[in-house]
């Protein structure tokens, strides 16, 4: 899979997962509330107040730690490939050094 396809799919997946964890508190309730309490609160109340945001933090951490990092690495490789190709072309055509912007990295 190409990097940008992976990036788009990962972004969509992360966004949907974040929405899903918050809405879990709503859907569970509408389709049948789990009949138990957490710290004394009805489950759906606890989920919207604390469980959902905590799950959101965890999900975002997974997105940040694994998905973003791996895609950033792949982008760096793409930049490096272009950089080396250009340098090779420049060496081949002329002895002047290139002034490429391709090596720029905003990460």
């Amino acid at each position: 899979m190409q990097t940008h396809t992976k990036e788009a799919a990962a972004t969509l997946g992360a966004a949907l997962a974040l929405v899903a964890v918050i809405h879990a508190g709503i859907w569970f309730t509408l389709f049948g509330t789990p009949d138990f309490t957490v710290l004394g609160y009805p489950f759906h109340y606890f989920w919207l107040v604390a469980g959902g945001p905590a799950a959101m933090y965890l999900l975002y951490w997974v997105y940040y730690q694994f998905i973003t990092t791996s895609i950033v690495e792949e982008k760096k490789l793409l930049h490096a490939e272009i950089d080396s190709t250009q340098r090779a072309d420049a060496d081949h055509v002329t002895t002047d050094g290139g002034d490429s912007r391709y090596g720029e990295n905003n990460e």
Partner: protein
Amino acid sequence: MSSWLLQTEVGEIGEYPFQETFGALLVPLLILLATFALYYGISYYMKSRIHGTTDYYVAGRTIGPFVNGSAVSATWESLATFMGVIALMIQVQMPFLALWTNFLLSIPLIVILYGQTLRRLGSFTPATFCKDRYGNTMSMVMALLIVFVMLMYALGQFIGLAQIAEILFGWEYSLSLLVIAVLVTGYVVIAGMWGVSYNSALQFWIMFTAAFFPMMFILQDLGASAWYFPPLGYGNLSGEMAEALPGFFDMTFDVKWYFAMFLAMALGPVGMPHLAQRIFTSRDVEAGRRTVFWFIIVTGLMFATIYSVAFAGVMWIEQQGHEIGEADLDKMIFYLNFAFNGDTITGYVVAGAVAGGLSTVSGHMLAISAAVANDVVEAFELEVTDDRKTQFGYVSVIAAGLVIALIALQPPAFLVVSILWAFAISAAAITPAIVLGVWSARVNKYGAIASSAVGFFTVLILSPHALGSIGAGGEGLTADLGIDAIMIAFPLSIITFVVVSLLAERIDSLDVDPEYNRSLINEMHGYPDDGVDRFTSAAPLIVLAVLMLPILWWGLQPW
């Protein structure tokens, strides 16, 4: 529904059998003055760092994750956190909690969907991005939408802040408004986003401590077992609450309501420029991503604390047998503190509420300023130096303060009742243009302009605030918040975007070249400009448009 968010007139101070206002004003006044001295001190200190528009609108792109996370949280929370949210929690109960939690999704979604890409591009506002992506006409459309939405939003903050001054000092409403307008505009204009960023971060912590610590004592007196941690410390009172108010934990509405609410309350704020602008202040893309961690932690704690205030408010009313008018429920956090903690601590709580209003309205003013003084100037391609643009920035902040204050003197009813409804406009008219523009090279200016126009006018026409005779079927809260309108406007906006964009490609005279954006798309996503076409498939757009059809059909069904 009635709250400061939705009031059309300044409410009378009622006569209740409990303390409603300050007995001794000196200490609360000193606390409030001290906080303003701090805000002005920070702005004055930061003033020397303003050297150009990048400094004025995005603090030179230097803000780290912790400061930004706190500042985003404060900008996002607003005065409503201390007043409107508590009142609505007491009135609407669980559905409002679900609605507000959706709001929490907006910042992570902004960062994931477009914040990091636009930060990489160096945009000041979404309109700057629209200029690069779609050209000048769409940039103008976006700037106008930004100004409209921000004015509506800021108006409520000004009115709320003026009402606090009115209650606190007993001044006339117009005098309170004038003083608030001058104070807010003053500290924003001095140091732009540099001052606003650090002030907003400080304001968050004033808000948090003003909510958290006083609640410990209130919950202890009400009998909460874990009173020392207000966000989750009152679970043992749940049974008592269920007996006193049997419907408190009910979800009340059906699936459609919550789905529509997601569109308005999660996707609406995604398009809000004052929130996006905060991410653009990050020192780099990485810092922008890390901001989300702090945002979730501090906002989660803040909100959970505020829910405890609403819970305690209901318990207190039930235990004491008080009857409080709907308009006065906004002041519940002050009533509780008067009753349990006295004047001095309530003075600090008032300072927290004021901090909430200031942090948000300062973001609005800077977003308006950036849209007018930067984006509009660039759209007209005027030959203006950076220094002159910065000067325009100062002037437009002052003008924004003046215009908002003048409208707030005698606000048109539909504007005052429509702060949350503005989210529906944002969701339908702003969010699609930004998000699809980032993730697809196939959408173009024709689609963007058509989509924004269709989204904006659909919400406007179906709104009870503008044309009362035409509606989308919802009533009361559902219609007031634009939740019914968004179920029609959002899918229509997306379908229009996709269909018009793809049709425009096939009309030779429109001269649409999908490759035109190739370099821009590669640059904003951090790819090398290697001539490779990325994000060019039409298939995801067609799938998205098809998915919108059942949503549109669902939205057209009776509520």
